[in-house]
């Protein structure tokens, strides 16, 4: 079954493969969630220096902002902690009945 463990393995493997190929790589990880959130703490998203990504830290509503932060981190910015409040409207888009909050940690693979 497509559980979080399998997702995590694929994300880690892709991050390592990108790094081995000489690309810049960042990994974003869900640190905490409050209320309804589509992905639990520990969920991961890996990003390369072209913005290509694998994995998920939400149902899709915050991925763009996380990828932007990941590109900054790959370019040399320090690791970042990002907080997101998922609005009711956005939460509806991802299939949730109510809003939630999520904190994401973004760091480069060095």
């Amino acid at each position, binding site marked *: 079954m497509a559980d979080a463990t399998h997702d995590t393995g694929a994300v*880690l*493997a892709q991050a*390592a493969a990108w790094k081995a190929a000489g690309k810049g790589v960042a990994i974003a990880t869900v*640190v905490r969630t409050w209320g309804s959130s589509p992905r639990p*703490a*520990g969920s991961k998203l890996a990003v390369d220096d072209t913005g290509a990504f694998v994995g998920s830290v939400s149902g899709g509503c915050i991925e763009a902002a996380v990828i932007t932060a990941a590109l900054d981190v790959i370019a040399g910015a320090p690791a970042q902690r990002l907080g997101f409040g998922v609005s009711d409207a956005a939460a509806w888009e991802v299939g949730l009945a109510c809003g939630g909050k999520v904190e994401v*940690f973004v760091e480069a693979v060095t």
Partner: protein
Amino acid sequence: MKAAVLAELIAARAAHRVVALATWLDGSDARVVTVDDAPPALAATVAQALREERALVAEVDGGEVLIEPHLPPTRLILVGAVHIAEPLAAMAALAGFAVTIVDPRRAWATAARFPGQTLDGRWPDDAIAALAPDLRTAVVTLTHDPKLDDPALIAALRTPAFYVGCLGSQKTHAARRARLAAAGFDDAALARLRGPVGLRIGARSPAEIAVSILGEIIASLRGAA
């Protein structure tokens, strides 16, 4: 995170080791740790994260450390492609277990009876040795035939499998324990054997018996029994 730490985490997962990734949320450090080698300030949170199978944040020296458990997949090895194995394999798969059904009797272990399941036609002792049960693996013998069950149990009791169980009556279980004692297992080793398998829920049909066995396996996995 350093690429070497990422490689270490991937290797630990591939080796089915029970580890946690500790990430200092100021970006200063990330390490792969175990319950045994975690820094003292993190040890309790590492143990809790692994036990509860969820990521937790530890507070240390005014900073925060994300503790992320990385556990091998849960596996269930069934010895004996008997009638009860059909609902048990299907239910265990639904509960997230990777299931392997071991039975060298080709007429029993057929894809028609076990659609989508992994079948292993080796003798049980060879199969158990090759499958290498770990701390997240349960082994259950179902054949009632000592020629098949006993070699599987002898092999399984030499592994760290979290659950080793045998289908059968109290009477046949006593005889089984006596045979295994004669094979060299002491009381401590035999205390690991669950038999007769299953929670006492009054199960009658094969599907109900499967529920009782799977319930006991999950209770054992979660430390509830």
